């Protein structure tokens, strides 16, 4: 299955969902649905968030697994928080 894009490749604007479908019974729902806040992050950021949750929110554990220093991992998390805050405020 393809990865869900969040940014328009033509004009770089935020994309919304127009159509949803059930793979089992082929039911389709049309409308204008907003992407959830986490889905608006880049693929790399989403991967980071998943790993962060898998590490039980331990930055030390993240740093150990990725062989990066603790402040590097913490700075990356701070960057994601900075990017996600305006999205949350819009909602």
């Amino acid at each position: 299955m393809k990865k869900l894009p969040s940014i328009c490749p033509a004009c770089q604007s935020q994309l919304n969902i127009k159509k949803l479908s059930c793979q089992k019974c082929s039911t389709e729902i049309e409308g204008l649905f907003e992407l959830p806040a986490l889905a608006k992050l880049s693929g790399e950021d989403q991967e980071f968030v998943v790993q962060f949750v898998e590490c039980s929110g331990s930055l030390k554990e993240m740093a150990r697994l990725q062989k990066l220093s603790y402040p590097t991992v913490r700075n990356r998390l701070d960057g994601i928080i900075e990017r996600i805050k305006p999205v949350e405020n819009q909602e």
Partner: protein
Amino acid sequence: MKPLKGKVMTNIELNSNRQNRTLAQWLFNPFQFIAGGSALLLGLTVMLASAYLGSLSNSHFDGVLDLHIGKAAPLWIFLAEVVIDWLCISIVLLIAALFVSRSSFRVVDVFGTQALARAPYLLSVLVLMPKGFIRFTKYLVSKMTQQAPVEAIKNTDVLFFAAGVIVAILMIVWMIALIYRAYTVSCNTKGGKAIGSFIAALIIAEILSKIAILTMLQLAL
């Protein structure tokens, strides 16, 4: 869709991280990979080694960015100089970060990365050790003070001196780059604020370290 397996993702991430690690990253931003207690331990070891080697050639670390051939002194003076330099730059940058950084940061990261950032001085001390460099430095000092040279210089001494000066300048540039990187990584500072606060902190730390070392020397010698 199957859930993402943690172990598989971790291995992929590890491999990509290893591939992305270039020599330039290790040379100019090792703090991506090492910080905190391990950087502090490694940095202190390098600092103490620099002080010991400096004592052998009377190379004094008389300021955050200074390295000069000077008078003979007990080993503890050289050790105290490197510690004062390190404490001055670390404390001043820590205070600067409190005003500039929007993130929380650990004190051990600031002190650890700043200790490791002083590693280029170990190489500087090594190039200042040859007797040719020291002889030519003494010769220049005697010329400037219009005194008779204590020791005759050899033809090759000027080469040692020129090479030593070039390497020392390169090491200072490298060290400033490392101190800046250590500051941005450990305190999560970015952009113009990071550059401005860094320049101000470096000047303040240089002045403070000079005053502290001069005071120490006046009291001790």
